């Protein structure tokens, strides 16, 4: 670790010492003891942070805010708790019947789809190994916000303007000379990475409008396509996390 890296890490070290037991800082802290110049920098940085924290702690909430919140809380009725359908025996039995029929249908499905191919390999490898994920630029930000929404179901066409996303700063990678965009988002506490490619760039890849599911190296994978784009969604949360989004 060089001093630039140490400084980068230490800027996240809280001045009240709350991070003293956090191993992430251990090597950088050790370096401040061995390198006097870095040690001086760190002392000044901590003093600056302490001064800032002290100033922020002086900001008081407006008079009356507490009372307003308490009064508002008293008149805000909790939302009624809906009784889950799974607690109704008749509906539960009906659902079980549907599940049996569905499972039987799947067993005899002529082409059980499996997500595979170079694009999927690339996406899984990138999602699990690369740390520089992120959707960037205003266009990617809008797409990211939409993907984060619990109401958005994946596995269908997405509002993607490939050229604009690429031009405005969306993370773009190169797979054998062809562009692949990536936007990451978090849902239900789990990270998902959505890879988007132009269908015309991968003419040999057979893709379905219906999501094809797979599990690779513990990661859940779903792949699907619309008229112009191929989509590969990868999550380290595995198959179960993926199914919740589809």
């Amino acid at each position: 670790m060089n001093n630039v890296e140490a400084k980068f890490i230490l800027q996240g070290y809280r001045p009240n010492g709350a991070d003293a037991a956090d191993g992430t800082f251990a090597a950088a802290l050790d370096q401040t003891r061995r390198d006097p110049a870095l040690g001086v920098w760190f002392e000044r940085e901590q003093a600056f942070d302490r001064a800032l924290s002290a100033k922020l702690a002086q900001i008081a909430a407006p008079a009356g805010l507490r009372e307003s919140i308490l009064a508002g809380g008293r008149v805000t009725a909790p939302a009624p708790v809906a009784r889950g359908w799974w607690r109704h025996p008749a509906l539960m039995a009906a659902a079980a019947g549907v599940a049996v029929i569905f499972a039987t249908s799947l067993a005899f499905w002529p082409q059980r789809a499996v997500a595979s191919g170079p694009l999927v390999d690339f996406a899984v490898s990138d999602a699990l190994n690369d740390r520089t994920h992120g959707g960037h630029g205003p266009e990617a930000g809008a797409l990211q916000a939409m993907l984060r929404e619990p109401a958005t179901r994946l596995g269908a066409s997405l509002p993607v303007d490939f050229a604009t996303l690429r031009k405005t700063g969306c993370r773009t990678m190169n797979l054998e000379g062809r562009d692949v965009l990536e936007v990451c988002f978090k849902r239900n506490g789990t990270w998902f990475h959505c890879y988007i490619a132009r269908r015309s760039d991968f003419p040999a890849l057979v893709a379905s409008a219906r999501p094809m599911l797979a599990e690779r190296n513990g990661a859940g994978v779903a792949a699907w396509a619309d008229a112009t784009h191929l989509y590969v969604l990868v999550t380290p949360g595995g198959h179960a996390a993926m199914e919740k989004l589809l």
Partner: protein
Amino acid sequence: MASDVFSQLVDAHYTPLFRFALSLTKNSSDAGDLTQQTFFIWAKQGHALRELDKAKSWLFTTLYREFLRGRRRAERVTALEDLGPVEADPPAPAIDVVAGMDAGLVVEALQEVDEVYRAPLTLFYMQDHSYKEIADLLEVPIGTVMSRLSRGKTQLRAALARKEAGAAKVIPFQSFPARKLS
């Protein structure tokens, strides 16, 4: 919802939530509204959250989401890659200057930092959240939090220097009363 539990939650968290809201909204009145709104959502939905020890992060996350919702979240997402490298060795922190400044002036300087950096920076200076908790709260990777703290501090130093230069012209920070419920 037990009213005593609600009161305890309010007492424990409304001031830090207000400070966070103030840094985001840049306006005491809006910050008060945002803080109230957060607790009202709790009052309506919080019964579903059975683990009270997670209430703090739930409240901060909800406040942040409500803020984003309020100002059209897709308005601007800054691309870190677009901003050039982090300054290798930022200017020496003016500790004495900060210590002598009015707290309101320091908050004003904090409010001049780009929003994408301001949120993690404020949470960091409140010292209640580790960088890992900040990452969870803002739903960004840990490395992004580190990077935003680094860039945010650089912007904050520049803003403080500007405030210091114009200190004589600045009106001291004032608190505004919370809006009354209709």
